[in-house]
C-alpha cells in the first residue's frame, strides 16, 4: 500500500532522471509524507490534552473559563506554579509535600526492585534450576492482575501489619509489583551477555559472585537503567494503591494529591494543570535520557545479532 502511495506521490513529469541514490531518498521521503500525515493526526489527538494542560497552567483563572476558549493572546501567569509549591500561609504547600513523597516512594521502591530483581534475573539466566520456566511464569503471573483487583486484600493485610498510610507500605507494594517486571526484563539483558566472561573470570581466580560483579554487571548498566526507568515510571504514576492505602497529606504521593484538588465546590483548574505539568516533567526527562536504552529494552530479542 505504501508503495502505491509512493508512486502516486512521485508520479507526474520528472524533468531530470534522479540518480539511484536520490530515487531511494525520494522514495523514503514519499513514504514519510504518509507517515507525517498519519503521525500528525495521531499527535494532535494524543497531545491535545497535554497542550490544554500546559495552556491552562499558565492562564489566569478568568481565562481558564473563557467561552469561546482562547488558544492565544491570553495573559501568561506563573501564579499557579507558585501555588503548587507555596502554601496559602507562605509555607510549603500540601502538593509540594506530595511531590517529595512521590520522589521518595518511587525512588526507594525502584532501587529495591532493582537490587532484588537484577541478581534474580542473573540467577534465572545462568543457573539450571528445577522448573525454571514454571518459576518464571509464576513470577510473571503476579503481574496479570490489575492493582484494583488485589487492593482490598492488600488493604486488609496492611491494616493488620500497620502499614496503612505509611510511605514504607507504598514502597513495599510498588517494589513487589516491579520485581517481576525487573526480573523478566533484566533476564533478557543478562541472556545477551555471554556466560563465558564469568567462566573466564572464575578461572582467573575470582569467585562466582566476584565474576558477576566485576565482569557481567558493568555490561548490564544500560539494561539496568532502562529497566529502572520503567519501574520508576510505574511507581511514579501509580494511583490505585496510593489512593486506597494512604490518606494523610504527609504520606500521600502526587497522583492522589492532584486528584484530591478536584471535587470541592470550586475547582482551581489552573492549579490542577500546573501540578500536572510539574508531575509529568520528571518522567519525560528520564525517558528522554534513556530513550535509546528504552527502545533497546522494548525490542530486545526481536533482532538476533
Amino acid at each position, binding site marked *: 500500500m505504501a508503495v502505491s502511495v509512493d508512486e502516486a506521490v512521485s508520479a507526474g513529469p520528472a524533468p531530470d532522471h534522479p540518480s539511484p541514490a536520490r530515487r531511494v531518498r525520494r522514495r523514503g521521503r514519499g513514504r514519510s509524507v504518509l507517515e507525517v500525515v498519519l503521525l500528525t493526526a495521531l499527535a494532535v489527538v494524543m497531545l491535545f490534552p497535554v497542550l490544554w494542560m500546559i495552556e491552562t497552567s499558565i492562564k489566569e483563572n478568568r481565562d481558564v473559563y473563557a467561552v469561546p476558549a482562547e488558544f492565544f493572546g491570553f495573559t501568561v501567569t506563573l501564579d499557579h506554579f507558585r501555588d503548587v509549591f507555596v502554601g496559602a500561609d507562605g509555607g510549603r504547600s500540601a502538593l509540594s509535600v506530595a511531590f517529595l513523597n512521590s520522589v521518595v516512594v518511587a525512588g526507594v521502591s525502584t532501587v529495591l526492585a532493582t537490587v532484588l530483581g537484577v541478581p534474580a534475573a542473573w540467577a534465572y539466566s545462568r543457573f539450571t534450576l528445577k522448573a525454571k520456566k514454571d518459576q518464571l511464569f509464576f513470577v510473571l503471573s503476579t503481574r496479570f492482575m490489575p492493582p484494583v483487583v488485589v487492593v482490598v486484600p492488600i488493604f486488609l493485610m496492611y491494616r493488620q501489619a500497620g502499614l496503612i498510610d505509611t510511605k514504607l507500605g507504598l514502597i513495599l507494594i510498588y517494589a513487589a509489583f516491579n520485581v517481576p517486571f525487573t526480573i523478566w526484563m533484566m533476564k533478557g539483558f543478562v541472556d545477551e551477555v*555471554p556466560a563465558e*566472561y564469568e*567462566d573466564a*573470570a572464575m578461572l*582467573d581466580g*575470582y569467585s562466582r559472585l566476584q565474576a558477576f560483579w566485576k*565482569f557481567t554487571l558493568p555490561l548490564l548498566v544500560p539494561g539496568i537503567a532502562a529497566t529502572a526507568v520503567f519501574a520508576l515510571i510505574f511507581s511514579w504514576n501509580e494511583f490505585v494503591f496510593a489512593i486506597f492505602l494512604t490518606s494523610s497529606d504527609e504520606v500521600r504521593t502526587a497522583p492522589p494529591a492532584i486528584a484530591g484538588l478536584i471535587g470541592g465546590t470550586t475547582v482551581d483548574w489552573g492549579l490542577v494543570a500546573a501540578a500536572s505539568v510539574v508531575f509529568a516533567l520528571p518522567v519525560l526527562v528520564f525517558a528522554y535520557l534513556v530513550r535509546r536504552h528504552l527502545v533497546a529494552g522494548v525490542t530486545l530479542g526481536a533482532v538476533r545479532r
Partner: protein
Amino acid sequence: MGTVAVQGLCKSFGKVRALDGVTLDVPDGAFFVVLGPSGAGKTTTLRAIAGLDKLDAGSVHLDGRDATADAPAVRDLAMVFQNYALYPRHTAYENIASPLRARRRPAGEIAAAVERMSGLLHIERLLHRRPAQLSGGEMQRVALARALVRSPRAFLMDEPLTNLDLKLRVEMRTELTRIHRSLGATFVYVTNDQVEALSMADQVAVLREGTVQQVGTPTEVYERPANQWVAGFVGSPPISLLACHAEGDRLVGEAGWTLPRPRWATAADGQALRLGLRAEDLSVEQRGDASLPGELYGLEPLGDRTVVDVRVGTEILKVKARPTVTGTPGERLRVTVDLDRAHLFDAGTGLSLSAAGR
C-alpha cells in the same frame, strides 16, 4: 607437577547424555588432545575439569588430590575458550593481567609478567586495545597470553584455533607446540580437527557421544584404531571400509572380490567383517598379488596428490595417487592393496580384529 585425572564423568543436559562415564589420565607435562566430532562431549569434559559445570557423577583429581568439589578459582588451572571470552570493557593489557589481579599479585610483578607474555606472543603493540579492536588472530593471542601469564597446574584449551583462518591455524599450531615444549606444562587440548590432534599431541583421547573410544599416541590411534568408528574419524581422506567375510585362507568381499586372508585375521569363517583400507595403503599404479577389481569413479586433485575414487561393487575406495595420475570415469582398473597395513573390524561390534594381533 600437573597431572589431571578424571574418573567416570557423567553429565546430562535434559535428556541428552553429554558424558557417559569418561575416564582420562593426563600425565604431567603431556600435550593431551581430546578429539571428537561436535557433540561428543569434549567441551563438557574440559568444563568438568575446570569445575565450571556440576557433574552428575564422577570425580576430578588434580595432582592426585580429589578436586571434584572445588570451585574453579582454587583449581589453579588456566583456560582458553573457543570464542576467547576476552572481557570486552578491558584492554588487552588488563585482560592478560586479570588472572594475576585476581590473585592480588604486586603491580610490578603484573607489569613484568604481561610484558614477558606479550613479547612471547608478539602482541606488544596491541596491549592498549580493546577486544573489539582486535582481529580474530590477535584476540586468540591475547586469550592465550591471559592463560599463559600464570604458571598454573595445567592449561585447558577449548578448540582455540577453530575460529582462525587456515594459514593462521597452521602457524599457531607450530607456535603452541613450541610454547608447550618451552614451558613443559600439562596441556589438555580439545579439538574436532584430527590434523591438530595428530600433529600436536603426545596423547590423543578419541571421544564419541560421551564415551572414550581410544586413548593412545597419535601413531597408535592412526595405525591401530580400536574400532571402525575411530578408523573412520581419524585420517583424511577417510578410511575406506568394505563389507566382507573370511573363507578359509581368503577374504571374500560382498561385491565378489577375493583377497588372501592376512595371517593375523582371527575371525571365524563366515563372520561379517569390514575391511578397512587407508588411501595411502592402496595404489592404482603398482602391480601386486593382492588387488581389487573396480572402475574409476572420480578424481580429486589436491595439488600434492590426487585422490582416486574407485568403485568396487557398490562401495567406493579412496586411493592416494601421484598428482599426475589420469583416467576417465568408468575405466576398469585394479587397486593394489598393502594387506599388512589393512584393518579388519567386526561388522557387528565395530571392534578391531587387527589392533591386538599385530
